């Protein structure tokens, strides 16, 4: 949007937003859009009495969204005598819904934990949200304590889909994205109603309802490619603890899947894999490991090279061998004349890619 050149000293955005919140908190009966635009600091300077205020109205719409995103409960009231008339809608912020309930107080020990929790998000998608939450916490006057010394925890959100999907969750709108399921030849467009974002085994998953199939699905964020587009209309989603549900489902899959590995003694693989949660020493240099996703585990195991031989299940063996062959082929210069042993390996079919 082109900036308005009419006002000599534009009012800073935060001053306009602050004035809007103050004005809407102060009113019991609510203010109409016209009253807001013509009187509230930051709008009134640009308001043209009797003229075209279309760009100012659009500004107001964006400001409302911005304020609501901060957890400010901006309410609209229909005029009783004239329902459905947009010009007569009244806006206000009910005080009780705005203010932190008086009985909520945080002790110094709790604040220490919350500081550390916020620190874990210091980079990536929810870092601004955590910083804002800490500002609100400090607003209550609670003693600021430094994070527990000696820890620097960090939660990663490397998947670019995390940010738009967490926005979709907060706005309760649908999301569309290209998803490449392992084994599928190409990514397919999915339209879903997001229900929860959960991190399990260090990976972010989206629990959602696939709106085309009307069935629940869980997506791995790292398999979403390209942009995520969000719907506009809020969806009607029944309240439930979807996050806990998603984690329980993933745990059940993790429980049911067992890989059997042979690891070389004294290697990185032996040391690290045997220390995984739920890892079982099966004797004779064998380890049993639970897992949720064949392709992800195959990636990891391939990285250990000759330190690991996968004994089962067959699909995991195949996936690992596939990866090793692909790496060998991509890095063996044909001119050198050596043939990768994998290419002559019998019995294991090359999976179509």
């Amino acid at each position: 949007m082109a900036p308005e050149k009419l006002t000599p000293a534009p009012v800073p955005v935060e001053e306009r937003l602050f004035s809007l919140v103050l004005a809407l908190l102060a009113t019991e009966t609510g203010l109409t859009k016209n009253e807001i635009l013509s009187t509230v600091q930051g709008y009134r300077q640009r308001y043209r009495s009797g003229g075209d205020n279309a760009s100012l109205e659009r500004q107001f719409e964006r400001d409302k969204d911005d304020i609501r995103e901060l957890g400010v409960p901006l309410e609209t009231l229909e005029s009783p005598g004239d329902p459905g008339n947009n010009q007569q809608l009244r806006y206000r912020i009910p005080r009780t819904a705005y203010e932190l309930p008086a009985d909520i107080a945080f002790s110094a020990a709790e604040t220490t934990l919350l500081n550390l929790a916020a620190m874990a998000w210091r980079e990536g998608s929810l870092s601004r949200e955590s910083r804002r939450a800490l500002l609100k916490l400090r607003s209550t006057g609670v003693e600021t304590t430094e994070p527990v010394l000696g820890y620097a925890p960090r939660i990663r959100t490397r998947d670019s889909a995390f940010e738009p999907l967490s926005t979709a969750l907060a706005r309760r709108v649908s999301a569309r994205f290209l998803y490449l399921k392992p084994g599928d030849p190409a990514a397919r467009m999915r339209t879903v109603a997001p229900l929860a974002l959960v991190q399990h085994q260090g990976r972010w998953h989206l629990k959602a309802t696939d709106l085309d199939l009307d069935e629940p699905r869980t997506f791995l964020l790292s398999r979403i490619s390209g942009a995520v587009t969000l719907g506009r209309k809020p969806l009607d989603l029944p309240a439930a603890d979807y996050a806990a549900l998603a984690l329980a489902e993933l745990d059940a899959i993790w429980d049911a899947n067992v890989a059997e590995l042979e690891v070389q003694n004294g290697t990185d693989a032996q040391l690290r894999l045997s220390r995984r949660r739920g890892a079982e020493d099966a004797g004779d240099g064998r380890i049993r490991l639970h897992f949720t996703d064949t392709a992800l585990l195959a990636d990891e195991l391939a990285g250990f090279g000759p330190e690991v031989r996968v004994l089962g299940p067959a699909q995991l063996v195949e996936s690992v061998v596939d990866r090793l062959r692909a790496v060998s082929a991509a890095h063996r210069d044909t001119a050198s004349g050596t043939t990768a042993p994998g290419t002559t390996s019998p019995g294991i079919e090359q999976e179509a890619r």
Partner: protein
Amino acid sequence: MADSGQSFSYAQDKLTFLLALVPYLVDIGRVSVSDAAAHFQVSEQQIRDAVSLIAVSGVPGETFQYQHGDLFDIAWDDFDEHDEIVITHRVALDDSPRFSAREAAALIAGLQYLQSLPENIDRGVYSSLMDKLARGASERPSQVAIARQGATGSLAEVRDALARGVQLEFDYLASRGTREHRTVDPLRIDSDDESWYLRAWDHRRGAVRTFRFDRLSALVVTDRPASSAHDDVRLGDLVFQGGDDDLIVTVEVDPAAVGLLGEYLSQVDEAPDAQTGAHGRVRAHIRVAHIHGLKRLVTSNASSLTVVGPPEARAAVADWADAALRRYLE
């Protein structure tokens, strides 16, 4: 800390700061600019700017004219001459704002993550705290959750050594496959999702080193005090610690997978012609301490990462994959 505090680049964050600052100032009655800055971990200038803005803000009022009584007011002499803040008249705002759905969700998920720490914190503390956050949000917190991790082996012992300021000894398995005995002064425990690291001063090397917890064994918490000489060493975020003998390797990587290179990444070549590489990949240069880490990284990212050069790096990766394939021929 206070003067190098956070700054806000977004209007939304600046607004949150204003809405948080007013109830604090009202409640405390009188406070110095420096104390307020320390409390909010912002610069003194940010406090002064915010107070100056608050002091001229208010509501349109009955006259819609922002009359004097419709505005905040402060004790200007105290502010101008003594750098102290006293709000003498306030409008509209009384109490601290609620958390947004996402703000509450971020802290709740952060707490879930912290439950893996070997601190002696009752589970009840976490759940009552999460409950408070949920009740203090203006909407039901967004559904974001992090699974509880299993206990990380020696975390509790290292934490103990760190708290008591004593040296640690352990065997460390380097990625090249060698096992070495190390004596260190522990400095900090870092984590990165499910990976845990010890940042410590390595006695033999006379430098700060990063150790993966799952590569530590035969850990001994000694009685020897750790030197405090390294307490001031600035530990940045977990980064790959480069050395002079680092290898610069050119790779082709799927743009979506660049993040996987994480700590290794030193520079992504953004030249347009690099974008036209095979399968829409970009070329990047990564620093690795030795070939052993590289071969593991590449074989665990078979579909998204290929080494372009130097030739010895390509050969090392191919040899690693071939050695692994040979095991399936046995």
